[in-house]
């Protein structure tokens, strides 16, 4: 199916600002789904609240636009009831890791089969540019007018520590890689985390003098490096991208099927 076939045109134009990276993530996600040849009826997209979360409305799947931070909890209910469905959960950095941080680590710990996409623009965009748990020390935001003294989470390290069985990172500059990673993440059976560095020129960029959207994407090009590259050893400030974790682990819904088997046996 052509990419256009996955879009709800009725919903357009989208709400994202000019230069926003989220449209690129949407593009990559749909290309990944197209390459996988998945049927639209088998995909459920669950999102929370924020700029990123509006992605659910634009796609012609079963779409659930929930409340701030709780997308993974809603998705857990959908997945447990209908394990054969493919769950994709796009979230913003504040949505996933501030208000939704608890659900993020616990979903990872359970290894429930779904794909969590953290669209990291390092800011709360929809409310006008407040600092997020991924803004980082020394950044500026409307709620950090002097400077931000909060350290940032490293999404990849957090997901690894919480037990996610697939962990990857890419950027809106590296669209080919992003599509490939999203494909892998969706295919992976277990909890997959994909962090996407996605520019917000309107708030993060402007406040922090990062230039235009194109400048911010160039920053991704110049300041990231493939996982385990020599460049990283020479320059530890570079951000690694690629697949960090891909391991086989017992998946939650399959394990629950075994619980049902045991419970039913005990009964007869």
């Amino acid at each position, binding site marked *: 199916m052509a990419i256009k076939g996955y879009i*709800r045109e009725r919903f357009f134009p989208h709400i994202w600002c000019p230069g926003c990276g989220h449209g690129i993530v949407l593009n990559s996600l749909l290309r990944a789904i197209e390459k996988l040849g998945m049927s639209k009826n088998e995909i459920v997209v669950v999102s929370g609240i924020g700029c990123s979360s509006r992605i659910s409305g634009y796609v012609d799947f079963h779409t*659930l636009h*929930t409340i701030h931070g709780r997308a993974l909890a*809603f998705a*857990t209910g959908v997945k447990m009831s*209908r394990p054969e469905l493919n769950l994709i959960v796009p979230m913003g950095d504040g949505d996933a890791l501030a208000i939704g941080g608890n659900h993020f680590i616990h979903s990872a710990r359970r290894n429930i089969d779904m794909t969590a996409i953290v669209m990291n623009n390092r800011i709360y965009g929809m409310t006008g540019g407040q600092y997020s748990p991924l803004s980082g020390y020394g950044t500026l935001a409307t709620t950090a007018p002097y400077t931000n003294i909060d350290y940032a989470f490293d999404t990849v390290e957090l997901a690894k520590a919480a037990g996610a069985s697939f962990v990857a990172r890419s950027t809106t500059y590296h669209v080919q890689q992003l599509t490939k990673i999203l494909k892998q993440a969706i295919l992976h059976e277990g909890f997959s985390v994909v962090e996407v560095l996605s520019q917000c020129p309107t708030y993060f960029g402007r406040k922090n003098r990062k230039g235009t959207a194109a400048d911010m994407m160039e920053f991704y090009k110049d300041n990231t490096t493939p996982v385990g590259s020599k460049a990283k050893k020479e320059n530890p400030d570079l951000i690694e991208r690629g697949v960090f974790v891909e391991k086989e682990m017992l998946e939650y819904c399959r394990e629950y099927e075994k619980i049902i088997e045991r*419970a039913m046996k005990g009964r007869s």
Partner: protein
Amino acid sequence: MKNQNIKFIQGNEACVEGALYAGLDFFAGYPITPSTEIAELLSYRLPQKGGKFIQMEDEIASMGAIIGASLTGSKVMTATSGPGFSLMQEALGYAIMTEIPCVIVNVQRGGPSTGIPTHVSQGDVYQARWGTHGDHAIVTITASNHQDVFQTTVDAFNISETYRTPVILLYDEVIGHMREQLVLPKQGELPLVERLRTSVREGVNYHPYLPREDGRLPMSDFGGVHRYNVTGLFHDMWGFPSDNPEVVHDLIRHLVDKIRNNVNQIARFKEYYLEDAKCILISYGSSARSARHVVEYLRPRGEKLGLLELQTLWPFPHDIVNEKCVNAKHVVVVEMNMGQILREVKRAVERPERVFIANRIDGVFITPKDIRDILRVIQGKGV
């Protein structure tokens, strides 16, 4: 011979039996006193029938999970108490806004805050009504004995499916933990309302939020042939966000009216000796047990006393209360809070100055003697 259908169990277990009878498929919850037995028992019982149980990381997640599961066509429930019920309020509003059937059990303990976890209270009556933000309507039901706990739990699922609304079962610690007899109805004995699914075929436009003429809203299960959007934003018949004033107005009217226009259908109550009663006690939940005891005790002693036991608390059955109390000299509301249903009764009756309260707010179950002492004062018989 032992009758397998008679059980001697806790109220929390009676609630579980009712939920399973109603067809519960999915439960998500988080441990909290005094509701925990519901989760424990369902973790054992649900997989035996192919259902699913999950212990979530908190009550917010529990509400989210049951709403998600309900969208796939499952009958769902969660159970909690005061602090957990507070955490559930935002997602409860989401279920109201998106019209997703679900049942929430609150086995009340004393609050505010951590309060008095192992003791009884009925302090969450208003929270059940107005806990989530924004204009809305809600259904809240309670019961005073285990047979009624079973019945009202089945009712809660039926009402939830009929009106596509969350239903709150507002039990209390005494009901939850007290043991008494429950006679299990046979399958088929009580009517069950199943999910109303759309008859719109694949490829034909399905409007998930366009009510039928009778006001009901047929659903399509997530994963089925109709793909649609569900959002907590105000939305049109497609489920698409809208800030069109007409759409906003119509949706909020629909959400409130579908409950408000069916107050009498949703109203469940019991009455004892009301025909000639000069003094009417109004009570609900466990405190109705003591109120009924007082009535049964004083009737043979010549006191024209009656009891109106409310099971449906919200929408409050104002007309029914008004009608039942029209000939009463006094009305005494018996409850274990500072007067939450008292206020509704005063709003419902012709002469609010004749409405009094007999209450306890100290975590101790209200006794028949507590009520009789207050009756003496009201009737001018001294302290």
